[in-house]
């Protein structure tokens, strides 16, 4: 089997298992309140980590580029209570414009 197919199969199988962890193995169990309280803070923690990686992560380096300007514009839209679509369009347009100008 080629190297490519080994990667496709191993990564695919692992991801299927990762995604199934909760719904398949923990669904029929009532989690204790303490654990539930932890799961509740998991969402904001993961979202914050996703914001940071999506905005400035490179390949083992921090990259400050047009994404950050786009995120800044998006943050301003969030502060003005713009709908999700507007937030994304503002961020994308700012980043695209930055790339065009530099």
């Amino acid at each position, binding site marked *: 089997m080629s*190297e*490519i197919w*080994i*990667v*496709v199969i191993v*990564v*695919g199988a*692992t*991801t*299927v298992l*990762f*995604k*199934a*962890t*909760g*719904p*398949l*193995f*923990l*669904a029929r169990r009532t*989690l204790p309140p303490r654990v539930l309280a932890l799961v509740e*803070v*998991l*969402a*904001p*923690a*993961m*979202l*914050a*980590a*996703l*914001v*940071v*990686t*999506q*905005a*400035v*992560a*490179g*390949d*083992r*380096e*921090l990259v400050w580029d*047009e*994404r950050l300007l*786009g*995120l800044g514009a*998006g943050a301003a839209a*969030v502060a003005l209570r713009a709908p*999700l679509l507007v*937030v*994304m*369009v*503002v*961020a*994308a*347009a700012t*980043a*695209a414009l930055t*790339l065009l100008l530099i």
Partner: protein
Amino acid sequence: MSRPRFRDGVLAALPLAPAPVLFGAAFGLLAREAGFGAVAAIVMSATTFAGSAQFAAASILETGGGAVAAIVAAVLLNARYVPLSVSVASIFPGSAARRLGEAQLIVDESWALSGRSGRFEYLILVGVGLFFYPLWVGGTALGAFAGEAIGDARSLGLDAAFPALFLALLVPYLSSRRALVAALGAAAITLVLIPFTPPGVPIVAASVAALVGLRR
């Protein structure tokens, strides 16, 4: 507000539709350059269904990094699906086979959008996931077959749209002090770890640290 329906999931995902097509096409293109056949690229999108891990694996193979490095990077990146999946464990109904299948629709966007109302909504998650899935796989096929004819996702600013989306979804959580501390802590840990660890590790480490720090 009435109970969310499947349609609400699709509607929530509608504005995001160009992204999975363009990024899917970009993956298809990169995969071809990395030596994937079109079928292997499409099979990977259909089974893994997680953009960042697929990009990481394909780019490592393309630069000659080898299968082991590609697998390790992709598995680390996708390790975040363990905590994501645990957080929505209780919302999936039905048999084990159905839960296994529908759990595959968990992607960052479907998970994040489904939690918008303060608690995770099954129909939103499945709606967004089912809407994204054919676009992602179809986009991959487009890139793998049609190649360079397609526009560049980065030049359209789509790279910046995603952090903004996640920020917009994060803000409603921040009314609770515990959530604010968890978010700031996770952001700080992620920022510090990015230069020193392989991609994927910072997100997992940050979420674990947030949990450990708030344990009580």
